[in-house]
């Protein structure tokens, strides 16, 4: 509780630099020159108290995020073999029979020799799950949200696990006998994981 009070104070302090604070300052500055019948505007409350509390079911239905540590991954599991069937039925028409891509859907499968990650230098290199995606959990999160593009949200969790397993196996990231579930998927380390760096641009002279 004490922590939360601190947090509130922290946010409130930060907010003091915000537009509301500016407005309050402006109000005070102009008070001296106001006509005699003008009173100060009401002091603003710490919060206005609008909105309602979401139900547990709405929270559960809406909060579908899957984090890199596996937080948010649901029950269920899927094998590479099961995934091949899901892929053929739901994905292949856009992404090609083996993930090679078509005019309507990007290539999903492919690795570079030594995972060279020459994307900066070679504009022809196509990014795939295997050669570019840093986290396997992102694949689950994205497929469950947005795929297949004509019917997003239509796959059961086990179907998502299965198709993720299939794509990871096609990319040579996991064995063809592997089964993906909340524990095994979170443990997968993607080949490009260490290639990503945080933004070091800061403005000022010089180009990065």
């Amino acid at each position: 509780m004490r922590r939360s009070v601190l947090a509130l104070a922290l946010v409130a302090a930060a907010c003091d630099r915000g537009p509301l604070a500016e407005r309050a300052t402006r109000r005070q500055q102009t008070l001296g020159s106001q006509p005699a019948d003008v009173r100060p505007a009401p002091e603003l409350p710490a919060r206005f108290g609008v909105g309602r509390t979401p139900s547990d079911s709405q929270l559960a239905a809406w909060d579908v995020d899957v984090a890199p540590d596996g937080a948010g991954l649901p029950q269920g599991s899927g094998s590479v073999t099961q995934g091949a069937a899901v892929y053929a039925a739901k994905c292949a028409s856009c992404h090609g029979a083996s993930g090679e891509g078509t005019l309507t859907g990007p290539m999903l499968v492919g690795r570079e020799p030594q995972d060279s990650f020459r994307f900066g230098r070679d504009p022809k290199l196509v990014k795939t799950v295997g050669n570019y995606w840093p986290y396997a959990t992102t694949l689950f999160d994205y497929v469950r949200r947005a795929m297949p593009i004509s019917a997003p949200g239509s796959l059961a969790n086990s179907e998502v696990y299965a198709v993720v397993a299939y794509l990871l196996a096609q990319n040579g990231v996991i064995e063809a006998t592997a089964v993906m579930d909340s524990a095994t998927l979170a443990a997968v380390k993607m080949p490009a994981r260490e290639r990503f760096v945080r933004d070091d641009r800061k403005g000022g002279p010089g180009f990065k």
Partner: protein
Amino acid sequence: MEKDTNPGRSEATDDAQIESAGTPGQRLTRRGLLAAAAASASGAVLASLPAAGQTSARVPQPATGSAAVESVSIPADPTRAPGPPTSALGARSPFEQPARAPTGVTSGSSMTPLQALSGTITPADLVFERHHAGVALIDPARYQLMIHGLVERPTVFSLADLRRLPSVSRTVFLECSGNGRAAFRAPKAEMTPQNVDGLTSNGEWTGVALTTLFREVGVRRTASWFRAEGGDAARLSRSIPLEKALADAMIAYAFNGEPLRPANGYPARLLLPGYEGNSCVKWVRRLELADGPGMFRDETSKYTDPLADGTSRQFSFVMDAKSLITAPAYPERLAGAGWIPISGLAWSGRGRIARVDVSVDGGRNWMRAELQEPVLALAHTRFTLMWEWDGAAATIMSRATDETGYTQPTLAEFRAKRGAGTDYHFNYIRGWVIQPDGRVSFAMEG
């Protein structure tokens, strides 16, 4: 598999398609004329014959015109007869037909016709689009914004709730981080400013400061990021550092004085001034306070910047300083030697534009352009340099510097650091070539 012949394409290329913005020059289409006539509720007047005794100037007709094409008559002397009456919605003059392009793209973009605009404000119906699963159509009465996660009071706000809270308005640009990709990857002499850089727009956004909303829900001390999710069919999601919320982020529900257009996030979107457009999640329906990023698809496999050194830069939110001359530019043709304004737009996601320099000799020498006041932070800034063209071939270029002292790099500097394959944040110096006959084309080597 041969990479050259690989049918797989990066979906990121949709951020900056190369398609032409249409036939250069003013052409009036039947559709445009009908729309203008209908919107003015004065079609009968517009389409009527000129008053007796008056000649009429025909509005140019499409070359493919047939008897079916509506003809619109403009009186030779508008002082001799009353014009059309008042109307519910203003329509553009039938002589003006700015258009976004390309159209009909569900997962991709349409670009703002920068060459058709004056000053700094983008009309709402010309703001660029970038969709990942089409335009979400949302009933405002059913709209909800849920804020949860590391907060004291998980809360669902209706649109009415948002409008009850104190509002803030701010004029800022919004630019897709893929803006300029086509000009970098596949430059063509016949590119318009729209083709080159049309994924940036600028105007006045109104909404609720995130600080206001975060006070309502009580952000916990352990929160360091928030994750924003859109209500479109992609449920597009991005993770944003909490500091940005405390600085100047807002949930915007209006643009240029009216509710957001559906293509730009109606009824509400996240707006992060100076940050790449993709992070300003449209149709936003959920903010989750968290202790780290979610590593969503659009902050890992997309919207990361491969660099020449074999790494990829992640969470590269800020749009660095950039500029583009919008006139003279392709497909314009200069009438002849003499004084002309060289005019364009400059902007920076780090603050105000401090100066814009213009070169008329391909970057060897530079002159300081005039900036139109007020110069707003994180907003398009109009620059102009009056120039007396002597009729000789020339390459004109612009180079912006922002208030942090950052200056746009040259193409060579850009290529050296980022590499020929880099994917976003194309902010190097560009220009236009003017031929002695007055033709203007995109300078493919900046």
